[in-house]
């Protein structure tokens, strides 16, 4: 199970990549994609829309089940990964790179401090 060192994580299995320009890129973890199995459909937040930390902002449908997608931080969505609309399997194949989901411009960058480190997340999924 890959848990890249440089990313931050939520208990709900999202990752956040601090882009150091006031925005973060968001996706779901390797653990999450593996647990969901083949992802077949996605509802992502809209560009320009607001997301709130810890609240559902999208839905991930896999063959067997569906799961809410939670925002790791609050802010405005500035970009979504359009490639996923045609090829949801990118999330399974490359959860941390090509399978990224959206970019949010943070309204409160201090929220980053509340996210889990790679080490903490690893410990969480090892339970």
């Amino acid at each position, binding site marked *: 199970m890959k848990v890249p060192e440089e990313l931050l994580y939520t208990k709900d299995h999202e990752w956040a990549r601090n882009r150091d320009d006031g925005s973060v890129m968001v996706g779901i973890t390797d653990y999450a994609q593996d647990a969901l*199995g*083949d992802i*077949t*459909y996605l*509802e992502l937040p809209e560009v320009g829309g607001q997301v709130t930390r810890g609240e559902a902002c999208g*839905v991930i*449908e896999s*063959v*067997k089940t*569906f799961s809410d997608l939670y925002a790791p931080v609050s802010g405005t969505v500035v970009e979504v990964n359009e490639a996923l609309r045609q090829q949801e399997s990118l999330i*399974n194949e490359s959860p941390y790179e090509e399978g990224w989901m959206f970019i949010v411009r943070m309204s409160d960058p201090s929220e980053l401090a509340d996210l889990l480190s790679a080490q903490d997340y690893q410990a969480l999924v090892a339970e």
Partner: protein
Amino acid sequence: MTETATQQLALHQRHQALDARFVPFAGYQMPLRYGSILDEHRAVRTGVGLFDVSHMGEVEFTGAKAGEVLNELITNDLSKLVDGQALYTVMCNPEGGIIDDLIVYRLGDDHFLACVNAANRPKDAAHMQQSVAGRCQVVDRSDQYVQLAIQGPSAVALMERIAGPSVSSIGYYHCRFGQIAGARVLISRTGYTGEDGFELYYPVEAAEPVYDLVWENGRDLDLRMCGLAARDMLRLEARMLLYGNDMDDRTTPLEAGLGWVVKFDKPAFIGREALLAQKESGPLRRLRGFILETPGVLRPHYPVYLGDRQIGETTSGGPSPTLGKSIALGYVESACAKEKRVEIEIRSSRHLCTMTTQPFYKRSGGDS
């Protein structure tokens, strides 16, 4: 059901070796998937897939009156069967509700085997024993059988290798005994995927040798192990019902579109009066298929609307890789059963669906 209460299949270690994800189901740790469910689905539609469905129950009826007595329990007519023939049927309660759906094999004049749903085994056995009331022998042999399903266009090729070229002459819904890896195997031309294929019933003592022979011979046919998740998706595309989802004790076969397995012209059977009355008055709801015409995924228990009025609910649903759309089964009020377009609510927004009486998938040139 707790984890400790679940039993392992005889082939558990084989599944573990293939990295299966297990799910507790009907008292067993069942393989849910081995890798990608979509790959497993594709293998069955284009090549061949192997399923361990040993959780299914096998109940044996023997004795001079076995056929007659078993025929009272089921809605379809067993009396027309010849040795080596199989029959899909349901077993109803006196109110016409479906206790279970099952396949009955006629193995001889006085010897029948019923394959029942795993989750219904205790209920079925109790009902059978009570209704049979000692008039023939009824024995639950479930723990003594392994059941493998070999399904897909290449299933015949694989079976010919392990059981001889004559297996291709076994007709759809027919069976016969054969020798595989030294074991006596009931080879049945049946399945739950909408593809051509076989189901093998054999003694649990031979679990691994038979499985290993199938697996080895399937290598160059790209045989893939498939779990319950792929099985569910395949059966849904073929519009085969799942007990517990699409039918239960309060659903009649007439509502479920299974009128073809109810034979009113055969000798008396349990549920006949109730079903006849319902046939005359017309069932109040009917099973329908739904194809989602927008992006998204249908799931069980989503409300079905016609205009502003809820007319039903889905009972099964999921993505259909074959259609590239999502599909579902469910019940709607009979008065609306002829509609072609309805809406289904997914998380509080309504989506256009085509309503159909047809299978979502039908293999070309097949009987099933």
